[in-house]
């Protein structure tokens, strides 16, 4: 198929502290007791893409991720792990592995994408239009908690960043404008040239860039080479490509057309031109094609490249795990509405030991080896492996990771409790995040706080 897949798994995400740590890099953050990277890899595996490059920030994280992948996907996927330095951004990460890219097209997937949109759809769109870049857009998920809302002050700032302003052509196939991140606040600058060529542009703000891209390799490598200040795919590379689609600099549009059996060079070139003309005439030209022909009728054509979009249908599930809020949402959805995402290897262990009069509500997931005391209540929560939960504990809308000890009489609402945390008796947590290994002393009460061990 000539597609190479790069999974940008990331490493230590600042947005997700205190959930992630050195011991638990972001790709391994459990979502419903299953590392988030698993969702992407599973999705790719389902699509018969078994040759992957996983890019992880930081050597240590790479080792951890590599160990996990080789343990889980052995004999199923052929995965190569590349460790890149931290804070070089997505574009930097791709630049670092760019010499490994050989296929005609590159599929770049973010490792924190939890989605059921088949990557094939994106690839098909990409190939059909022979585009330079194709990006997947999905409708912005209905975020926010069902009740007992836990939108911390931090998340509100994040929410703005999630919205994109996207300009589409009338057929909704081409991307004409994209503004992300900080640009949204500024005035939108739309190229007159593009507007003139297309005639009509549809601006949307209800779509989100899902961070799944297909790039033409030659284009990608060239952009990364030439524009060495570009840091992020989403904020630099993609807008650049979109802006310049009607005035492609350099050779963006001209990919070397395979090998030529050079019998008679001149005639074969003629033939090649002839064939491409027949093919070009046979298809309905997009505005790129029309634009590239000079109205004056001179022989020189303007260089263009196509930026396509694939808009996932609104029924499909597609969320990125890039904030704590998203983490909570995904955990809730994966056990609830979108439970088809749970890959089959996400087995629920042997039923945990429950004390008397302990109730576990629907949409819950309990890991293997967890023990619960008497008269506990668990609602819409996820509890990891080998947790010990005392009696009279109430866990609602929360995520409890592995090896957590919870003392008697604790009340946990809308919180995330990382691995190896110890909650002593009668702790009350509401909308808190407790970092790994933290010990919450008995009787303390916290609300909307983030607790973590001091970094040494």
């Amino acid at each position, binding site marked *: *198929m000539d*597609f190479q897949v790069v999974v940008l798994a990331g490493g230590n995400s600042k947005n997700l502290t205190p959930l992630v740590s050195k011991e638990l890099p972001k790709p391994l953050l459990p979502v419903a007791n299953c590392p988030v990277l698993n969702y992407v890899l599973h999705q790719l595996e389902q*699509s*018969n*893409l078994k040759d992957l490059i996983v890019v992880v920030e930081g050597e240590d994280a790479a080792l951890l991720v590599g160990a996990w992948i080789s343990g889980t996907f052995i004999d199923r996927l052929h995965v190569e792990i590349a460790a890149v330095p931290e804070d070089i951004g997505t574009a930097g990460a791709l630049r670092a592995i760019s010499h490994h890219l050989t296929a005609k097209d590159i599929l770049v997937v973010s490792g924190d994408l939890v989605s059921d949109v*088949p*990557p*094939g*759809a994106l*690839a*098909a*769109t990409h*190939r*059909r*239009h022979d585009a330079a870049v194709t990006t997947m857009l999905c409708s912005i998920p209905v975020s926010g908690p069902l009740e007992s809302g836990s939108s911390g002050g931090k998340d509100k700032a994040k929410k703005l960043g999630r919205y994109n302003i996207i300009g589409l052509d009338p057929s909704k196939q081409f991307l004409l404008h994209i503004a992300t991140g900080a640009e949204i606040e500024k005035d939108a600058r739309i190229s007159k040239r593009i507007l003139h060529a297309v005639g009509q542009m549809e601006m949307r703000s209800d779509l989100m860039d899902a961070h799944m891209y297909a790039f033409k390799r030659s284009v990608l490598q060239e952009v990364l080479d030439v524009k060495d200040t570009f840091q992020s795919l989403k904020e630099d590379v993609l807008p650049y490509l979109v802006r310049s689609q009607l005035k492609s600099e350099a050779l963006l549009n001209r990919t070397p057309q395979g090998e030529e*059996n050079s019998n008679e060079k001149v005639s074969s070139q003629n*033939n090649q031109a*002839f*064939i491409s003309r*027949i*093919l070009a*005439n*046979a*298809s*309905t*030209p997009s505005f790129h094609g029309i634009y590239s*022909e000079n109205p004056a*009728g001179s022989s020189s054509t303007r260089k263009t490249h196509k930026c396509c979009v694939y808009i996932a*249908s609104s029924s499909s599930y597609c969320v990125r795990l890039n904030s704590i809020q998203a983490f909570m949402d995904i955990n809730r959805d994966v056990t609830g509405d979108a439970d088809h995402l749970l890959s089959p290897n996400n087995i629920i262990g042997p039923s945990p030991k429950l004390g008397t009069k302990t109730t576990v509500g629907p949409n819950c997931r309990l890991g293997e080896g967890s023990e619960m005391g008497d008269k506990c209540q668990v609602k819409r929560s996820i509890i990891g492996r080998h947790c010990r939960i005392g009696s009279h504990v109430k866990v609602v809308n929360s995520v409890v990771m592995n090896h957590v000890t919870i003392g008697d009489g604790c009340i946990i609402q809308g919180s995330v409790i990382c691995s190896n945390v110890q909650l002593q008796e009668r702790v009350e947590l509401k909308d808190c995040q407790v970092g790994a290994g933290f010990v919450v002393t008995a009787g303390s009460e916290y609300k909307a706080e983030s607790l973590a061990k001091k970094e040494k």
Partner: protein
Amino acid sequence: MDPRRTARTVSDPKVRQVGFFTPAPPERSISDPPRFQDPIQPSSPSPTQVNDHSPSGNSLSPVMIPPAHHHSDNFLRTALQATSPTKAFSYSAKTVTIPPENEDVASSFSPGRKVVSAKSPSSFPGVKASSVPASELTTVSVVNLPPGISGKCVYKLKGKLIAEKAGGASVEVQNDRPVSAKTLKEKTSKAERRALQEAQRAAKAAAKGLNLMSVLLTYGYSVYLVYFTFEQILNNFVPVDHYVFLAEGTKASSAASKVVTSANTKPSKAAKSSSQKNDGSQVAASEKKGCDRAPEKDRKKDAPHPRMQYDDKSRVEKAKKRAVVKKTEARNRVELFRHLPQYEHGTQLPDLETKFFELDPMHPAVGLQYLSGDIRGGNARCIAMFQAFKEAIKDYSTPPEKTLIRDLTARISSYVSFLIECRPLSISMGNAIKFLKNRIAKLPLALSESEAKSTLMLDIDRFINEKIILSERVIVKHAVTKIRDGDVLLTYGASSVVEMILLHAHELGKHFHVVVVDSRPKLEGQLLLRRLVRKGLSCTYTHVNAVSCIMQDVTRVFLGASSVLSNGTVYSRVGTACVAMVAHAFRVPVLVCCEAYKFHERVQLDSICFNELGNPDAISKVQGREEINYLDGLVNQENLQLLNLIYDATPSDYVSMIITDYGMIPPTSVPVIVREYRRDHLWS
């Protein structure tokens, strides 16, 4: 029932070709015996028998059948080994004395069969090579029994296997049986009853020289059918219940054991096909649901496909099951065109997209482009297809234990069937595929894989260069001589050749005016017009509705064609016939430009039998004008049928001349070109 069946077999040689549409073989198993009887005893095959086989041989399209191969032999041998235990077991269950007898006659019989195949090498080409031994042996095992007993044996075999599931001879067989025999327990008694009846009938027949051997011959026959023409079988060449068994066979085992299982199932099938003719199809239908369709890759070869008739519901169902692309049949179709495939537009693309990577390495991009209409026009589609094939061949590596020639042919076939699912093939593509398959089949065995691949890729390039590009140039050269200063030329749609002619004439400095006639919904003429105007030609643009008004001024009509059929009929974009007829009425010469590789030996008198249906939405809506929505909400009404035909057939009366790479010829000379140069097209 019986009389009808015999009646059918009488007209065997002729009907068989067509008869492949309708289940024939199981019926033959009963009616044929007399013929098969002959060779056994006098070992001089009667001509009827040869005839009887030849259609099957022909339908296998001799070219495609590769010569004998080691592993094919192996397959068959293993098949036999696998079968023999079961048989022995069943016989011994019945009568102890039979097996030795069996073997005796086996040896005595096999030469007889060989004579058959040797005597009619031409008519029996495919089978001769590798599968005869198989059919021989399979045949042998039952043939020599007295008919009555053998009949019973067969039935017993079935009953036994059903009863003792743990028979042990081969697991596969048992895996197959229970499924196939659906309700084993309750039906056993029924089956036995039938067995008895069958035996009695067989005994009666024996008096007239009947022998059950024929039954098994038929199975032998289907064994090699299995081997060589898996595709055909899937295409319902073989009766329903055969079909079912094959499907099970494939399910139970991988490709290697496919033949084994199918061979194994044959005996019981023997019983079945003869006993269950009545309810066989129903049972088959229900059984079929359970089993997976054989993967596309297993389709073994290309054969003259009987065109699928889409008004035949059961077949459509079957075809749908093995389809790669999920399609929803459009509901309201025009009665006259029910036999043509039509699908709800827009249901195919998303499905195909999701499977994009699963289809690897089918290079589905081309199919997608066909489906979405990004590539259209005979030449362009053909070139795009060949480029995709070139990619596929480049990536191809022969799997272990397979030969390139066969495996690649199968691959190509699977690609082609995928493309067909995306959009029906054009005739030009059909011819091109025939060419490629011929080239593959003609590859010398000694060639290494890389050599073979490069040869094929060169062949493809050569085809594109010679048959498309060079012939277009030649056509242009010829046609330009017909353009004089002051001419008014009319063209319809957007033909690549016509465009080149016009441009070339313009470059030569001729002064002429062009009328581009267009039609909805594709409006391809606008694209042509755009390019012509850009080059500085003086043009008039109008729609086909106005063709009668503009025709008065026209001095020549140049038309492109999708194909030219051997009765001179020009098969082209819908509307061409109308333009040609108007031109004829105004006594304006009509010149059709068509490359010779698009010629086809078919004769077609109307555009109903073969045609393609486009997306009905395209005519019910006007692109870019949302306010024209009079049909909104009516599209799914029971009493509204939309018809968007793609092609029509222009009778040769309205065509003055056909310009092709072999010169300018009258339409009556098309068969000459087809006859004389067909070889050249395919084998060059």
